[in-house]
C-alpha cells in the first residue's frame, strides 16, 4: 500500500506535529519503503490467530486503594515551562 504526501500531513496533524515541506517529502519516501517492507506480514496466514498485545500472562493487577504520599504542588510544578503559584499556565485555547 503506497501513501501520498497528503496522508503524511494528515497523520502528522493527528499526532500534533507540524512538518516542513522538505520533511513531508522525505518522510513520504521513507514511510513507503517501510510500509512496503512490512507488507511481508501478508505472506503469513493468520486466520483464526488471536492477536497478542502483551507477552505477559498478568491480568487485572489489583491493589488496595490506599492513600499514599505523592508529589507536593511545588514539586509537580517545578518542571513546568510556565506556572503560577497553583497551576500550569498555557496559551489561550482559541
Amino acid at each position: 500500500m503506497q501513501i501520498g504526501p497528503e496522508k503524511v500531513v494528515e497523520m502528522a496533524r493527528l499526532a500534533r506535529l507540524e512538518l516542513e515541506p522538505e520533511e513531508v517529502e522525505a518522510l513520504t519516501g521513507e514511510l513507503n519503503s517501510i510500509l512496503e517492507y512490512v507488507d511481508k506480514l501478508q505472506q503469513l496466514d493468520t486466520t483464526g490467530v488471536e492477536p497478542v498485545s502483551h507477552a505477559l500472562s498478568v491480568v487485572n493487577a489489583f491493589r488496595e486503594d490506599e492513600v499514599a504520599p505523592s508529589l507536593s504542588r511545588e514539586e509537580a510544578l517545578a518542571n513546568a515551562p510556565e506556572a503560577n503559584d497553583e497551576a500550569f499556565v498555557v496559551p489561550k485555547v482559541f
Partner: protein
Amino acid sequence: MDIHNQTIAQLAENLAAGGLSSRQATEAVFARIEATGQVNAFITLDREGALAAADEADRRLAAGDAPPLCGVPIAVKDLLCTRGLRTTGGSRILENFVPPYSATVVEKLRQAGAVIIGKTTMDEFAMGSSNEHCHLAVPRNPWNLDYTCGGSSGGSAAAVAADQCMAALGTDTGGSIRQPASNCGVVGVKPTYGRVSRYGVLAFASSLDQVGPVTKDVRDAALMLNAMCGHDPRDSTSLREPAPDFTAELGRGLSGLRLGLPREYFEVGLDEDVKTTVMAAITRLEKAGADIREISLPRTEYGVAAYYLIAPAEASSNLSRYDGVRFGYRDRQARELLEMYQRSRSQGFGREVKRRIIIGTYALSSGYYDAYYRKASQVRALIIDDYRRALEQCDVIISPVTPTPAWPLGTKSDPLSMYLTDILTIPTNLSGLPGMSLPCGFSAAGLPVGLQLQAAHCREDLMLRAAAAAEEQLALAGKRPQL
C-alpha cells in the same frame, strides 16, 4: 590492576577488605572518564552526588553494614528518571527536565549501595541502533573510535567497555541492550518482561520495554539482577514471581543443558566474520561437552515487520504526553494552545522519533488498523508459538546477536537498513523472554562479536549458567580495548 578495571565482584571484595574506599574507586572512575573522554558516553555526570554517595557507602562499609553493591560506581541510561538529576531521554524536548522522583530500579540500586555516577547517552527515546539519533552526545566505539557503539543503550555499553564505570543500566525494546553490548564486547542482559519495574522509565513501547544490566562479566550481571528485580506495585506489568539468587547456578557448567541452534538465524544474510566467530565459539562449547542441537524458529524473518508496526504504535501513544504543558520544551512564540502543542513537539522531537510517531499513528488509524496493527499482533502470537515449540527441545537458544559487527559512524542513513540490523534481537522482545549478549570473539577488523543466549520465561538461571560456562571456555572476560 587499576581500580577502574575491576569488576563489581572484585571491587566489592576489595572494599570489604578495607584496603580501598568507595571514594577512591569513585574518583578513579571519574579520572578514567576524563582520560578517555573521546568515547563520549555520558550526557550528564554527577561527581558531587556520586562522591557524597561514596562517602555514605564508606561509612556503611566501616560499620560492617554493607549491602551487596555498596560503594560500587554505576552509570544509568538517560532514559531512567533520577530524582534531582537531569534526565533527557536523549531528546531536546526533555533537555532541561529534572525528575522529582527516581525510577524504582534506580532506587533499588541505591538501596543496594550503588554509587550513581551519571547518565549515559542513547538514541532519542531509545529509538535507534547506532546511538546517532541524539543531539546531546554521540558515543564512539571504544574498540575503534570511527565505529558506532550500537544503540540505543550505546553510552552504557561504551562506558562499561571503556572501564568508565563497573556496570551500567540499559533498556532493551528490540535489542537496545544486547546489540550495543555485542558491538562493544561487554555482557548485556534483557531480563524476562516484567522482572524489572518500568516505573520511572520514560516509556517507548510499553509491551516491549525492559531494563537490564550491562556488565564486564556474567557474574556481575547476576549481581546486578539480584539488586534490580522484584515486584513493584507501581508497575502493573511487574511480575509477582519472586526473583531467585541469580548467582546460584553460575558454577554448574554445561552438563545436562540442551543448547538450541536456530537454523533461521543463520539464513538472514550474516556477515562472514560474524558467522565464523560465532560458529567457532559454538564448536568450542561442543568440544567442552555441550549438547547442541538444531532447532527452528520459522517466523524469525517476520519479527522486524511486526515490531516496526507494534513499537511505533505504542510509541505514538506514549509520546503524546510531551506537549509542552507540564514539563519539557515549549515553543514560546505560539499564541494558541494547538499551535503550542504542534510547534513544541515539532521542534522538540528529532527526525527518527517523528518518523516513528507517524508510522504508529498510521498503523492505528481508522481503516488501516486491521491491516497493520492487528496483523502485526497476530504475527506476534505466531512468533511466541515458535519459541514455545523450540523451548520444548532445548533449554537455552544460542545464536549471533546481530548480522554484522559495528559499522562506521555515519554510514547507515536509510531507516529501513538500520531497522533490519535488529532482526535477531527483536523476536525476544515480542515474546517477553530473557536474552543476553556475551562476548565471543572479534572480527578480522578487531571489532567485538557477541553470542546471543535466550531462554524460557523466567529462566534467566539457565541462560546465565550457560553464559558463565561459555565465558569460561572462551576466556575473553577481562579483554579490554586500548584507549
